[in-house]
């Protein structure tokens, strides 16, 4: 299971059977250049692998006014 803290929405989401950053983005319907993904304060590119229990920050980058 991967835990996602989604910003700026302020949502906490649990994802099962998700083993890469790209898979997380796909499940959130985000393209790789539409959000930052970080684990323990370190930015991750979309090809990085994830392990059970990883907690991610996913921060959408589009300004909404």
């Amino acid at each position, binding site marked *: 299971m991967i835990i996602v803290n989604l910003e700026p929405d302020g949502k906490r989401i649990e994802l099962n059977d998700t083993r890469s950053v790209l898979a997380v983005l796909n499940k959130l319907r985000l*393209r790789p*250049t539409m959000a930052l993904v*970080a684990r323990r304060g*370190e*930015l991750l*590119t*979309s090809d990085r692998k994830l392990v059970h229990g990883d907690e991610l920050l996913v921060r959408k980058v*589009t*300004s909404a*006014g």
Partner: protein
Amino acid sequence: MKCTRCRKTAHVSLPSHHSGFCADCYPLFFTKQVETAIRREKMFTREDRILVALSGGKDSLALMLELKLQGYNVTGLHIDLGIPNSSDKARKKVEDFCALHALPLRVFEMAAWGLPIPDVKQYVKRPVCAVCGRLKRHHFNRIAVEEGFDVLATGHNLDDEVARLFANTLRWDTAYLSDQGPVLPASDGFVRKVKPLFRLSEFETANYAFLKGIEIHSDPCPYSGGASFTAHKELWGELEHRSPGQKLQFYQSFLKQGKPAFARLEKETGVKLAPCTECGSPTSAEVCAVCRIKAAVRESKAQAE
């Protein structure tokens, strides 16, 4: 993915540049893009006094920090819009950021000036984003002129510029198409305006802000729901995903091939500017739009009370 520069593990992937960078090398890429923008467009020099418009978002704060690190003479200007549960948070981010980096800051309060944005939303029968933007531009320019700054810098990025160009193109708005670009020269009471982040996407400025530890105000404005600007960015995000590099190509090709034609047309048919009879700001009418908005709100408020 490996860093294009040093071959360590990459932390940022940039498909439009066919590159990836580690946390140490990414800021060098960012700095180079800003340096290129300033140099190629002759935006300003280290002798110029630069007023930087600060909203509290990633772009304006990243711009302010980067210009300071490059040795420019920068002062921040934040406009407190007076929106409950929003403006106070944005203002605090800006004030904390400037205090942390020992950067000079001016704050202008719309409420103290007599026109908080909630009043605009309540009493003006036009899209609040358009009116708010006009008011902010008015005060950015007025303060820059009154306080003798050489140039006003804003954190507009490539996505902002492309979304705006796209919207102007959908309407074939000759006036806006004639002067959209990363540099707007000083003229007729307007200070020079520059956009040093125009070569960088929102994703790219967001990565820089994250890596530099900048605390940003990322809550959307409570009044901006359904803004067409956001929808246009989403459309372009999809296009860029399918064809990386399209945004910069669209924008730069417009600057080279489209803008000169629109500028010529506007020179022939455009309106002349003169000082507003009430506030002195440049306007195509006798009384400028900002003074008219202020008067309209005052009258509507008086009638309602």
